């Protein structure tokens, strides 16, 4: 008995729509099995993971805070992945965006005007984009594998941030803690609706970015170019599209999005720079991008789901004593199921018994 794939004449529209749901369902089953194996009541744990954080207003705000960077990074990555540019260094671009955006409030704390915040956001995007430009340039000019170069730059960015907050940017009044001075009021990203919780404008940016990139990808020539180059570089060349320019474009867009996510997180949720400012958002966003089937609107939903796992992980730790380390294992398994289910879009799967093989060959 073995599996055999039969190519569908066309993509299955049914499974394109269904596959994320099947994948998510399978993840739930796998999660329940995992929780049971760890000696926890699976139903109760799943409740704390996926339902409990949705029952209170303040935790809905927390959900928006966690979802904002995931969605922002993932919509940028969708442009990269659709055009077959494998930027996996979004975590580094997130950090560099946060650093570039923090220059004003950290180095010029007395410079307090209303336009500081917009400047910070622009500098954050520029910082992320500039950092993403490095692997793009190396790929175009020297044919360097962008997967490896973008990933290596993540480690460099993390170490650079660590050096900054322990060294030159350390808060002079901070009792030697490794952190920068707190941002002044003009450098703080405001809360959307502060009466009910602390969700900040980063979430609005994420939604706007998703809408803009959705429009770009599905309604404009540029979006068409992205997809053609991604699916068939040869066809793209015949159409007169430049693959090199697309590399730069995709990296700049995703770098800018990751940078915006970084500065929004720092100025909205944290309020200063610290040695660690991200629980791996840049990597989790890869999962978000695929779970959202590289469609910006799907990514909004996927970002909310992955954000929920972060909150659910905390809730389950407090209520049923499940380690918060389980979250990352759980998130990792989602991507597996998503990828496996995507096979159903292009292929039918059939079981073949050895005896039947001759018969199948004749069909």
């Amino acid at each position, binding site marked *: 008995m073995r599996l*055999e794939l039969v*190519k569908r004449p066309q993509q299955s529209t049914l499974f394109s729509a269904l596959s994320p749901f099947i994948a998510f369902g399978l993840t739930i089953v796998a999660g329940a099995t995992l929780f049971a194996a760890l000696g926890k009541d699976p139903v109760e744990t799943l409740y704390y993971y996926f339902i409990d954080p949705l029952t209170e207003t303040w935790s809905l705000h927390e959900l928006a805070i966690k979802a904002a960077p995931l969605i922002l990074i993932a919509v940028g990555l969708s442009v990269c992945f659709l055009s077959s540019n494998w930027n996996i260094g979004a975590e580094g671009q997130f950090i560099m965006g946060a650093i570039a955006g923090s220059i004003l409030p950290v180095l010029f704390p007395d410079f307090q005007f209303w336009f500081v915040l917009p400047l910070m956001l622009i500098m954050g995007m520029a910082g992320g984009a500039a950092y993403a430009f490095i692997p793009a340039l190396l790929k175009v000019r020297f044919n360097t594998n962008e997967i*490896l*170069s973008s990933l290596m730059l993540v480690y460099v960015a993390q170490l650079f941030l*660590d050096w900054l907050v322990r060294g030159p940017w350390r808060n002079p009044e901070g009792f030697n803690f490794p952190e920068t001075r707190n941002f002044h009021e003009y450098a703080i990203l405001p809360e959307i609706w502060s009466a009910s919780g602390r969700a900040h404008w980063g979430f609005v940016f994420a939604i706007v970015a998703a809408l803009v990139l959705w429009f770009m990808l599905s309604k404009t020539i540029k979006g068409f170019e992205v997809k053609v180059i991604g699916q068939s570089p040869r066809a793209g060349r015949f159409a007169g599209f430049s693959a090199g320019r697309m590399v730069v474009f995709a990296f700049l867009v995703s770098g800018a999005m990751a940078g915006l996510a970084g500065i929004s997180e720092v100025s909205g949720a944290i309020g200063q720079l610290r040695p660690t400012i991200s629980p791996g958002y840049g990597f989790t966003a890869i999962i978000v991008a695929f779970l959202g089937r590289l469609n910006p609107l799907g990514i909004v939903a996927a970002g909310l789901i992955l954000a929920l796992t972060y909150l659910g992980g905390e809730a389950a730790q407090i209520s049923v004593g499940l380690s918060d380390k389980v979250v*990352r294992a759980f998130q990792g398994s989602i991507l597996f199921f998503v990828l496996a289910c995507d096979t159903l879009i292009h292929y039918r799967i059939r079981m073949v018994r050895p005896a039947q093989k001759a018969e199948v060959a004749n069909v």
Partner: protein
Amino acid sequence: MFEAILLTVSMAATPLLLAAIGELVVERSGVLNLGVEGMMIMGAVTGFGVALTTGNPFLGALAAIIVGALFSLLFAFLTLTLVTNQVATGLALTLLGLGLSGMIGESFVGQPGVRLQRLDVPFLSELPIVGRLIFSQDLIFYVSVFLTVAVAWFLFYTKAGLTLRSVGDNHASAHALGIKVIRIRYMAVLFGGACAGLAGAHLSLVYVPQWVENMTAGRGWIALALVVFASWRPLRVLAGAYLFGAVSIGQLHAQALGIGIPSQLLSALPYIATIVVLVLISRNRRLTMVNTPASLGRPFVPDR
């Protein structure tokens, strides 16, 4: 002193060498497995855990090999049987491995580890300098050197090696000749997983006999870069791994000496060196074109 430095270089190089030599075989068969980091960290946590509970580091290393191979089977099933995108699946393997290992290893944090003992080769280990360097190392070091030579011989001097390379260079033709493309790729991926698992065990049983979350710290990715750097040639992987071992040990010594450069910038050196080396190698398009397995990363569905 000099001898001690060379010894630590070889300790830093061994896990890179092992993981890279495994990945080299995988890529020669036309499969790009970006999950090296994930398989390595699973090997590290398994090796540590088994050695700790049984008290026997050899069992730990053996378990790491098995778990690395089993973990790579997950990748093989998805990319080879279900024909999923290899880049995305490899990333998934890495993310899952980092997550799972953190979960499994939570109770190991801070526990004193079990170190894999040195094995002295009789007589030879008493030779001056080379004796200590080459003939008085841990078992995994010997395995890594042996595997490098064995893989070089296998790939270029045996029929099976030629078959494996043909699968990596043109899977359609290989299939037409009746070669079982998928089966050979499965075996290659399993071998790569076993090597990465053992590489991880070297980290947690020899290099720093401890369990720390994310302790591979990008070594799996550096191993991937080494394969490109070596332009898919086993003996060049050996040279590359020792070069990188030297860079990472060199920066550690520079930190210890306190030469006025911030430690974080020195710690970033191996990663920056990786990028620089990749640029230098890949800018020579002819070299990479000639050596890259032509079917690398391409999906294969046999037409029946």
